[in-house]
């Protein structure tokens, strides 16, 4: 499954393991399109592929198939794989420059003794973010999506295979900086965490409502800069709650360490609940 941007056809998706420095080309996005006929939706012709005798001239065939179904199937496989290992996975999304990597660096350094982290970095190009994460001592793989604007669940699956996270650990997935497309793609994560910052417009939640609706937590980063920017916090929070009244909103500054405790408490609660699915399956 690769409902990546079509424009990625001519540019490979690459996976780099920072521990070895090895880079591999992930399967060309559509090579696996015809793998496995796992049509679970009700359709009378499920077993008839390739048989034209079912298709008289101008026959209408009912499909009722979600276009993103293959991504969702991959996401469920990933979710099961993670649950089996009691691994908590979070999908960090934001526009470019909101501070995802800085927040990750800070979080890993502060909490590494409480919970082992590993990281999947998503960027169109370069290993720069992965190198920053590697400097914290944390295992990291980098997916370079080429021209594609988001990660999808099949990329996550390949990255996890390579990363091979420890049982009872946390995998942070830093998505490509983009507030649009990543909202469509379930990566198999426990939750999406959207990061906004006060150097952006305070109307981001209502301009990109899908992402704020898909997320469970919104971090409002860079609050140390509030005295210097025309950002109305109340207005931003009002927009965010209008789009998603269940959104947990945590204002903080990753660089000045303001209010990190609230974010860490939320993470600890997720960490404590990581075995819930495993127990419910037992």
């Amino acid at each position, binding site marked *: *499954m*690769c*409902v*990546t*941007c*079509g*424009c*990625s056809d001519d540019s490979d998706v690459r996976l780099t393991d920072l521990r070895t420095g090895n880079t591999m080309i992930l399967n060309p996005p*559509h090579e696996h*399109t*015809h793998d496995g*006929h796992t049509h679970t939706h009700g359709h009378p*012709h499920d077993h*008839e*592929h*390739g*048989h*034209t005798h079912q*298709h008289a*001239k*101008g*026959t*209408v*065939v*009912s*499909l*009722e*198939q*979600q*276009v*993103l179904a*293959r991504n969702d199937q991959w996401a469920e496989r990933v979710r099961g794989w993670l649950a089996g290992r009691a691994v908590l996975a979070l999908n960090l999304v934001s526009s470019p420059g909101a501070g995802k990597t800085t927040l990750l660096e800070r979080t890993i350094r502060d909490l590494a003794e409480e919970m082992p982290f590993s990281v999947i970095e998503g960027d169109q190009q370069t290993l720069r973010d992965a190198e920053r994460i590697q400097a914290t001592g944390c295992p990291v793989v980098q997916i370079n999506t080429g021209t*594609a*604007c*988001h990660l999808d669940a099949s990329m996550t699956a390949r990255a996890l295979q390579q990363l091979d996270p420890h049982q009872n650990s946390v995998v942070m997935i830093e998505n490509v900086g983009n507030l*649009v*497309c990543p*909202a*469509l793609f379930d990566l198999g994560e426990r939750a999406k965490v959207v990061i906004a910052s006060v150097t952006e417009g305070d109307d981001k939640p*209502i301009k990109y*409502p*899908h992402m704020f*609706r898909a997320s469970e937590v919104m971090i409002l980063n860079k609050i140390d800069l509030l005295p210097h920017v025309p950002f109305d916090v109340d207005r931003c929070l009002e927009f965010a*709650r*209008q*789009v*998603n*009244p*269940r959104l947990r909103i945590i204002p903080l500054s990753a660089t000045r360490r303001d209010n990190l405790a609230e974010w860490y408490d939320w993470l600890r609660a997720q960490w404590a609940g990581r075995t819930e699915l495993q127990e419910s399956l037992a």
Partner: protein
Amino acid sequence: MHELGIAQEIIAIVTERAGIARVTRVVLEVGKHALILPDSIQFCFGLCAEGTSAEGAKLEILEVPGRALCRACGAEVALEEPFGTCVCGSTDLQWLTGDEIKIKEMEVI
């Protein structure tokens, strides 16, 4: 930007299901607040169909209005925007329709 990928996926699904038959028409249901542009999908669909058994197929797009259930009072709310407010004042809504991207049916010969 992602419409070309979505169009590729639609072509992959319909041509796979059609087997060696030719696809002449595809009906797509797109929610009013789904994250894709119908014009862009039309354009990309034609491009992606070239050289496949769906080449020349017509793409019909049916817009599905947005509807939600209010989690506070249970009333149904029409979603004119990708968010809304119930008459009871609650914005805690469970979406029923409006964000789907679904292939409803296709015609093959």
